[in-house]
Every structure is written in structure tokens, then in C-alpha cells.
């Protein structure tokens, strides 16, 4: 229990320990702690940022979807209109075609009628000639009376 030089030895040891601790123990541990604190803070900030940009992206996606729907509606409307137009055009065409065909048919009929009339006229002339020949009693010379015959046929 004597006070002696142990005291000095203890003080020196204390001093050395404190210096060692201050140089080689305390700073690295504290540094690691600070670094981790910063890392965690950064991570949290990044998470916050990610959340934010996700919200933005969702907004944008909604916007795009809405626009796409609008466009699709517009396209459908236009397509309907165009379809109606096409149907109308087709009807018009069909009507025009029908008219043309009717005209052609009529023309053909007229032609046929004319031809038949021509035919009938020839036959009537022949019958008239034969009748006249019989009436005159002699053969009407067809060549000499051809002019006369033609005149008659034109009159009929």
C-alpha cells in the first residue's frame, strides 16, 4: 500500500495507451461508422428518388395510354366514315353500270327491231313482187325493175 514509482510507470503506460488509441484505434472505427452513416443516407435518398421517378413514369404511362386510346377512337371513327363512303361509291357505281347496261340492251333491241323490220320489208317486197307477177301474169324482171322495187320497199 505504499506510494512509489509504480505511479510513474502507470502514468507513462496510460499516456502511451491513449496516444496509441488516438492514432490507430479510434479514427478507423469512427471513420467506418461515418462512412456507413453516409452510405445509409445515400441509399435512403436513392430509394426516395426511385420512388419519385416511378411516380413520374406511371404518370407518363397513363398519359400515353390515354392518348393512344384517343387516337384509336379517332382512327375507328375515320374508318367507319370511310367504309360508309366506299359503300356509297359502290352503290353509285352499281347504279351507273346498271344504267349503261340498260342503254346497251335497249340499243341492241332497237337494232334487232330494225333488222327484223328490214327483213320483213324484204319479205313483203318479195311477196308483193310475187303477187304482182301473178297478177300481171308474167315474170317481173327483177333486174329491170329493181329500181322500182327498191322504191317500193323504201315506201313500206
Amino acid at each position, binding site marked *: *500500500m*505504499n*506510494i*512509489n*514509482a*509504480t*505511479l*510513474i*510507470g*502507470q*502514468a507513462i*503506460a*496510460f*499516456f502511451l*495507451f*491513449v496516444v*496509441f*488509441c*488516438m492514432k*490507430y*484505434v*479510434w*479514427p*478507423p*472505427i*469512427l*471513420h*467506418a*461508422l461515418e*462512412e*456507413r452513416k*453516409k*452510405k445509409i443516407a445515400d441509399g435512403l435518398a436513392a430509394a426516395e428518388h426511385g420512388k419519385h421517378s416511378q411516380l413520374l413514369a406511371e404518370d407518363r404511362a397513363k398519359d400515353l395510354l390515354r392518348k393512344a386510346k384517343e387516337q384509336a377512337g379517332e382512327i375507328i371513327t375515320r374508318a367507319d366514315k370511310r367504309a360508309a363512303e366506299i359503300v356509297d361509291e359502290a352503290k353509285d357505281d352499281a347504279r351507273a353500270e346498271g344504267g349503261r347496261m340498260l342503254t346497251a340492251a335497249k340499243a341492241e333491241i332497237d337494232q334487232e327491231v330494225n333488222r327484223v323490220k328490214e327483213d320483213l320489208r324484204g319479205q313483203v317486197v318479195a311477196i308483193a313482187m310475187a303477187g304482182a307477177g301473178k297478177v300481171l301474169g308474167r315474170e317481173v324482171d327483177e333486174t329491170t325493175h329493181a329500181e322500182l322495187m327498191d322504191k317500193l320497199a323504201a315506201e313500206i
Partner: protein
Amino acid sequence: MSGEVLTSADYISHHLQNLTFGQHPDGSWGIAHGAEAASEMGFWAFHVDTLGFSIGLGVMFLYIFHRVAKQATADAPSGLQNFAEWVVEFIEDTVKGSFSGRNPLIAPLAFTIFIWIFLMNFMDLIAVDFLPHLAGMIGIPYLRVVPTADPNATLGMAFGVFFLILYYSFKIKGPGGFFSELAFQPFGKLGLPVNLLLEGVNLIAKPISLALRLFGNMYAGEMIFILIAIMYSGGLVLGAFGGLLQIGWAIFHILIITLQAFIFMTLTIVYLDMASQEHH
């Protein structure tokens, strides 16, 4: 030991005798045998056990923490690093709460004080006879295992703190500022001698109280362990009762050793804070 019958008084005084290395009155150097021989050695003697245990514990704790510090990463910490970080954060918080200025020395100082004193106090929890008995078997006659129960150890640390108090007082307040703090308070310039006396006592009381508080607590704790250990020689019933008492006191002592280490650390921080403050 060697068949001689020990009385209780012998047992206690044997336990309270440090292993002292110094110069005998006849001029030769060696280990003192007995209290008188140790006190005859005068000031220039060393308590080999106190120095050995305290330096050994200090080196051990610094080695472990240094190893952790070298591998410390900012990633998820593992085992020992977790523990070291917990201690470091605890000390850092305490220092931030008590020390108003900025000084890179304070936190490592507080850390060293706390862990070192805790470990030295912790030696008290090892059964009192265990290490001395082992030492006796290899021929070491005396051994006190608790360095902080030796006033030399606590005074040595307290003087170290006292030196720092003086250093920062001079450095931050300047010699004039430090002197005026001692001389012109609390009674103004007219009461200078009284002021000097009061503040001087106040200043000296800081290291003395720091050292004696720790020493007293540890000495008393050690003494109680020794007294309980005496009961083991008093028969089966008394021995069993002593065993219970020892467990109880050891559990209670865990609180004391931590508390004393914490008090020493906190007071050091507070004293240095007072020394570093420019104005009152």
C-alpha cells in the same frame, strides 16, 4: 502454504501485499518479502503485479480493438466489429453530451479510460485466491490482481488527467487567464488570498478525488471478497453461506466496476471541458 497455519489477519495482509520490486536497505535489488521490507524500499520501488496486470490488460484491449479497427468496413459489420462500434458510439455520445468544444483527444482518451479501467476492475471478479495461488505454485510470493485497488495505479492515471487539465488550461485560457480564474474568483480582486486557497484546493481535489474514489471502491470491493473467502475455512455451513455471499457480491460488483469506470471517464471529460472553456 508449506504447512504453516495462517491466521485470518495473516491471510488478509498477505492478500493486500503487492509484489514489490525495489532496492533493499542493504543495497541489493529484489522482491520485497513482507510489508515492512516493501516500505523500506522507499519511493523507487515498483509494484510488479499492478504494472504487469494493468499493462497486460491495456495491451490486450488495444490489440483487439486495433485489429478490429484495421478491418473495419462500412459494410454490414460482423461480431467483434459490432461490439467495438457499440462501445465507440456509446463513448462518442457521452463525449458529445459533456464536452462542448472540439478536441480530437477527448474521445479516444475517454475510450481508453473507460475500457482500461473496466478491465482492471474486472479482475476483481476472478476468485480472490485463484491467481495468487497459481502464482504461489510457480514461486511468486505475493500477487494482487486488481490494479485499480492499488492507489499507485489510480493516482498515476489521475495525475495523467491532471496534467491534461493543466495543459489545456494554459493552452486555451493562457497563463494570465488561468491565473485570474484561480485568483479573482469567487470573491473578486480584494479576496485574492482566499480565492487562491479555495480554487487551489478545488484544483488539487480534482485528481485526488478521481484517484481515491476509484481506489476506495475497488479496495473495499476486494476487501469484501477477501472477507467472504475467509468464511470458506469456517466449516461446511459457513462455507456454503460464503459461496452464496460471493455470488451475490460478485453480481452486485459488476454494477460497481462498470459504474466506477464510467464515473472516472465522465469526470475526466467534465474536468477537461471546464479546462477548455474560455469564459465563465
